[in-house]
């Protein structure tokens, strides 16, 4: 039976993990490579590296980090942030990424999804969408959630899958950072219109939020979070055990 995936997300700036972490047995808390190894050993099913660097130097560092990680960590690795062209896809895939996540780059140029899916296969192309309710309508936001594109989100995601996206990361801006649970209403709407895996993001504050997510919406394939893992508020091993105890398929 296929398991529900738990995915920690690491924001990387100038080659370092942005959010401070403090784990026992971890010598360098802001080293992406060390943290990736740690999460893999803890039972993370997959990792997301998000490059929030703007400079060329930072981008070069990010590529080095990726390469180092791929030499040490043998679980799927998704890379996002600053992916605007096929060359960007090429750069991170050569460094060991398995999947590439597009967000603002696809909003600027939706054809990017199609071109990338044709060249690398749909399984390689993840469409990540930052979505927020505006006057009761789900709207897509660009530039890290700062800019309302005015696009209706459900249709945007549906069309992205039609163009070839093989997976969806749905990040609810409304629940992100609130730690009150995933945005089940928004996720349910997306699951209705796509038949590719959907990864829930934004809002997880505790183990129960993941249990509620997978019990309420069995169509959701994975839960993604950052700070609750980084700060040790939720331990991946505990989370997996709780999932199994609730009858949710988990890789222990």
């Amino acid at each position, binding site marked *: *039976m*296929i*398991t529900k*995936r738990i995915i920690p997300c690491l924001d990387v700036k100038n080659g370092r993990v942005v959010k401070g972490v403090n784990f026992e047995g971890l010598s360098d808390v802001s080293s992406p490579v060390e943290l990736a190894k740690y999460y*893999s050993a803890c039972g993370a*099913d997959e990792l997301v590296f998000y490059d929030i660097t703007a400079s060329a130097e930072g981008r070069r560092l990010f590529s080095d980090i990726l390469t180092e990680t*791929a*030499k*040490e960590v*043998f*679980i*799927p690795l998704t890379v996002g942030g600053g992916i605007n062209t096929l060359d960007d896809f090429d750069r991170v*895939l*050569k*460094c*060991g990424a*398995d999947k590439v996540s597009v967000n603002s780059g696809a909003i600027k140029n939706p054809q990017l999804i199609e071109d990338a899916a044709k060249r690398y*296969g*749909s*399984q390689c192309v993840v469409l990540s969408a930052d979505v927020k309710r505006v006057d009761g309508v789900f709207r897509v936001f660009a530039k890290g959630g700062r800019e309302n594109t005015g696009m209706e989100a459900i249709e945007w995601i549906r069309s992205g899958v039609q163009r070839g996206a*093989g*997976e969806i990361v749905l990040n609810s801006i409304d629940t992100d950072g609130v730690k009150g649970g995933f945005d089940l209403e928004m996720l349910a709407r997306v699951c209705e219109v796509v*038949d*590719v*895996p959907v990864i829930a993001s934004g809002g997880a504050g505790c183990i129960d939020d993941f249990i509620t997510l997978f019990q309420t919406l069995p*169509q959701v*394939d*994975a839960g993604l979070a950052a700070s609750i893992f980084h700060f040790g508020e939720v331990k991946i091993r505990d989370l997996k055990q709780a999932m199994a105890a609730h009858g949710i398929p988990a*890789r222990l």
Partner: protein
Amino acid sequence: MVAIIDYGVGNLFSLRCSLEKLGADVVVTGDRKIIANADRVILPGVGAFRDARQKLRDTGLDTLVCDLAAKGKPILGICLGMQLLFEKSYEFGEYDGLGLLKGSVRPLRGVIPADYKIPQIGWNALRFRKESDLFRYIKNGDYVYFVHSFYAADCDDSLIADCEYGADVTAVVQKGNVYGCQFHQEKSGDVGLAILRAFCFEEAAV
């Protein structure tokens, strides 16, 4: 020495790294002589069956792989590389494979219930069907990482493990010295590495 066949299909970086991590002497190459001299050969692959088959044919590596298999050299196909070992594929048409294993590659669609997503992406448990030296360091029920829309059918002859995905889906095959895994060992954590270790080393050497 383990040769990973490079025929222009897919990214071999992680696979090479995983073998290096195990301490294997590994080379990524399309050179016939080097492949022929290797102790073990890995046939990787992602993407479309037709393109991969064509590239193998264009490089003449298809006949080399078949010759080496006939001579008893251990050969491991991974993902699309496994699918290429079979007689036929019905992926967007009908194409001949290498024919080293009996059976054909067919779409998951129509075989599994409609509420199962395609591709199968994620970690699924192996169910051993026969004993194999590939399983030396892993146990029944261990999880491995799958990404695929097509699967090997009618392969009772070589099936040694499957997984449950709305149907019994072929996961590992073996016929003598010819092995294949549908999932990605190089992305399946410690379990994946343990399978690669079993392929790459004699028991005594570990």
